[in-house]
């Protein structure tokens, strides 16, 4: 008789394949961010018209910040989940609160960062008419927002794929606005990515130790 009594792949004694702190795959957020790069580069190269190495490259700098944030999240998440497996209930609660606080701060700082950058790029557009810096800056900010909000995805592939579809649709529409104008309409994208991050921030408030274990097992 084949046993059905230990049906979970993640049984105690066997090292479970740990999800991230919010239950998703480690690969999702970096992969979503990477998948947006071709859109951004295309926009940049198309608009820079033979002069790619200019000060407009500043518009791509937010990507760097995005990768640092996501890498930080993955590392912190990995450590937290490894400790969680060994911890008793009180310790688990402590690790949970500390990690949740870290992620809340990470998202809050990214929201603030996105708002400041969007304001700066907009100011530049208004005062100097720098369309290229404005659009590349905004697409970078918006892409980071999408990638960071994908950390709450579930572990399954379908859910991960859904997010790629969202990211592709988001970026494609951005390109249409950037090329066909009016260019200021592109402000919708960083605004909506900030609002997505804010929504997730609210979701994190309700995220508790029980939700974490449910996602770990699911």
């Amino acid at each position, binding site marked *: *008789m084949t046993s059905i009594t230990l049906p979970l792949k993640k049984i105690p004694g066997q090292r479970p394949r740990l999800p991230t702190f919010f239950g998703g795959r480690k690969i999702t957020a970096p992969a979503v961010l990477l998948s947006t790069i071709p859109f951004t580069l295309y926009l940049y190269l198309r608009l820079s018209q033979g002069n790619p190495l200019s000060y407009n490259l500043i518009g791509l700098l937010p990507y760097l910040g995005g990768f640092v944030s996501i890498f930080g999240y993955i590392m912190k998440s990995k450590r937290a989940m490894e400790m969680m497996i060994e911890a008793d209930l009180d310790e688990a609660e402590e690790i949970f609160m500390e990690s949740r606080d870290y992620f809340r701060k990470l998202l809050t700082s990214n929201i603030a960062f996105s708002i400041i950058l969007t304001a700066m790029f907009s100011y530049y557009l208004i005062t100097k008419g720098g369309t290229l810096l404005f659009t590349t800056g905004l697409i970078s900010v918006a892409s980071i927002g999408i990638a960071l909000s994908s950390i709450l995805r579930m572990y399954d592939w379908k859910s991960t794929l859904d997010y790629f579809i969202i990211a592709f649709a988001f970026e494609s529409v951005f390109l249409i606005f950037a090329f066909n104008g009016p260019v200021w309409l592109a402000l919708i994208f960083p605004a909506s990515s900030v609002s997505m991050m804010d929504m997730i921030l609210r979701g994190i408030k309700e995220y508790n130790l029980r939700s974490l274990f*449910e996602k770990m097992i699911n």
Partner: protein
Amino acid sequence: MQLNVAMISEGSYPTGKGGVSEWCHSLISGMNDVRFNVFSMSSEKGLRYALPGNVDEVLVEHLHSPDFKHGIDENYAGDLMKELTPALSGAPLDCDELLRLSKRSEFSADELLGSDVNWNTAIAYYKENFDGKAFAPFYIFWTSLFYILYKTLESVGKVPMSNVYHALNAGYAGLLGCLTKLKTGGSLIVTEHGLYFKERRFELSNSGIPSWLHGMYEKFFESLVRTSYRYSDMVTSVCRDHTRFQRGIEPNLKETRVIYNGIDTEKFRSNKVKNDREHFNIGTVTRITPIKDILTFIRSAKHVLEKHDATFYIVGGVEDEEYFEECQGLVEELDLEEHVKFTGFQDSLEWYPKFDVFALPSLSEGFPLTILESLSFGVPCVATGVGGVPEILGEDYLVEKWDPEGLASKISWLLENPEDRRRIGVEGRELVESKFSLERMISEYRKLYEEMI
């Protein structure tokens, strides 16, 4: 009254291969005039058998990874949980009350799993019993036990209506049988091939589950087994040894009966006469899983090969990949690559006639069909004296568990005495024809079914 039987299985027929599945398939195929339904809880989806014409309906409750759904009425979940928590102390469940509650409202296993009540009960139990231990393994373990229990409750109305319910083991299948029987007014037979409780205990010892969780696991399955025994109208065993254990664990068990397994002696017959030869074939037909103790079989090969030229065949599919790797590692370590062969899953009918001796070093068995099959082919057997094996083989052919030298010594004796080997083969065939034929087994179950309606 038309006899209508619902087979209730757990991880076996018709989605899995193995002794219990073969037994069930033979039983159904051998009773053309009886209508059967099959309900199976299984982690596999596909059917592994072409179903006989007398099977009306097959339902497989697929056990996938649990999904925690929220929104169930917590008062209701609380009432259900109150009836289920005795499982944690080893006490039998009150099936009448469980059934009454399960009729009160619709629910799914995923909703029960996602209820506040499930979480709070787990936390309370953890604090009372395991405070200070790692919480994650506990909660994962809790979920793996209760998820299937909830699935069992969810399945009560799904078993096709019949006048006799036949659970192929105690445990979840037995519990489902109890609840279904009470709901529909039919009768329940529980057949124990191996002892479910002992098998779970063995499974535990090989699972790598932290030892502090073992007690919880044992109590949980003790409860399911006792419930199955208490509410069934008849518990059948495949050997006398099991009956003693069953009465010991559940004093309120109503009735027990031993019905030996049987095989089709015409199918398992060979006219080939083995010549005396220099090279011998020793075989075992088994799933590759720790309970079958293939490691002892391999170690015994080393001893036999000191005196005889032989090849050792392990005929059967791999059920536990990690254990298979361990077996392969041992073969390499003992330098036996030329002499020990894993054939994978094959038609055993083609293999028995090739064997000079059949060996079965299992750590636990019910009433192994493979021994009957090899004897039917006139192949002498050596086996561990577990479960019903002593009721088939004489003392001379039994060995202790984990004893490769003892096993090797009995095998060698048979190889060195061709006349005795042949005589024992002939006697084995006669024994199977007279006591362990499929016709006899089917006729005894038919009689039992008729008694139940």
